[in-house]
């Protein structure tokens, strides 16, 4: 048993933990910008009585590269943090510890797929 532990020592443990903290802090920043931009900027201030987002507004905003970076960066951080968090939760259980490779690969696949999905979602706004 003790050999096994030494052998697994080179895996992602430390980095995973570190990135979880890093992404958490970045998330706070991104989340702030995201919420502010989405709900408080522009709209209500000008019209005064139109609280909801409209398609034009969003696509207008997303014409600016900065907003794309923020939204897409936010998505990547959320995924990094969320999926890495899921990995933590899973590795707390014997069942998944024994299938760690599978867990890692699975979460990477989900993560990458979602990033692509993210582009798909943003596309009409960017082009529109």
């Amino acid at each position, binding site marked *: 048993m003790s050999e096994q*532990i*030494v052998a697994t*020592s080179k*895996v992602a*443990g*430390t980095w995973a933990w570190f990135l979880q903290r890093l992404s958490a802090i970045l998330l706070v920043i991104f989340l702030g910008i995201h919420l502010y931009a989405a709900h408080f900027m522009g709209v209500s201030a000008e019209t005064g009585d139109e609280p909801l987002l409209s398609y034009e507004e969003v696509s207008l905003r997303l014409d600016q590269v900065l907003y794309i970076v923020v939204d897409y960066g936010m998505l990547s951080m959320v995924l990094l943090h969320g999926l890495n968090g899921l990995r*933590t939760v899973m*590795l*707390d259980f*014997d069942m998944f510890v024994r299938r760690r490779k599978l867990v890692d690969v699975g979460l990477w696949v989900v993560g990458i797929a979602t990033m692509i999905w993210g582009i798909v979602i943003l596309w009409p706004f960017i082009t529109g």
Partner: protein
Amino acid sequence: MTEGEIPIKVQRFDPTADKLPYWQTFNVKLKPGMTVLDALFEVLNHQDGTLGFRFCCRAGVCGSCAMVIGGKTRLACETQMSQFMGKGDLMISPLPHQKVVKDLAVDYTHFFDRIKKVKPYLVGKEPYPEKEFIQLPKERTPINEPIDCILCGSCTSACTMAWTNSDYLGPAALMKSYRFLVDTRDSIPEQRMDIVESESGVWRCHTQFNCVEVCPKKLNPTEAIQRMKIKAVKRKLFGKRALKK
């Protein structure tokens, strides 16, 4: 309050005979200064000779008698009965999530196996001096606390991470590792970090602080674990010299 009876409700289980654990209530007459261990002996001697539990020093130094008493893991020999007077049934059960040998006596094999995994021994710096290693009092300070651990197993069995992940080294083993990691006489910090940095090491700790809550010696395994997490990251970022003592 030093008079009257306290109903103690003990979890009974004989793995060779019973399918499931069950609870049994005994009434114990309170005597001045009576500890929970005394109460168990009272039951063993005069009510039910079939009760099983561990005991040795009865002074809170050997770590034999850790069990869950009234919803909290404590040492039976150090816990006064009078505080439970008039509070209804006093529930007593073995350390959670351990294999039960009999009633309140658990099998510590798994606990010690995990301690053994962290190389729980000093590998002194060669060459050995003719007399003692010189260690200044301030160099000893970091180990002052972790060496007080009596290996009672309370912390590891209260940590729910150790419940669901049987590989997790647990607070006791990790604090043992820390104790050698910060000992100025030790020469293998790299190897020690390799072990605590593994997936079954410090990363399984999510600062539940259950270990701190239950430790009968008032030690703080969480702090040791957190310090090692920082060391691990520093080592990844800045290389070996991060482990200098």
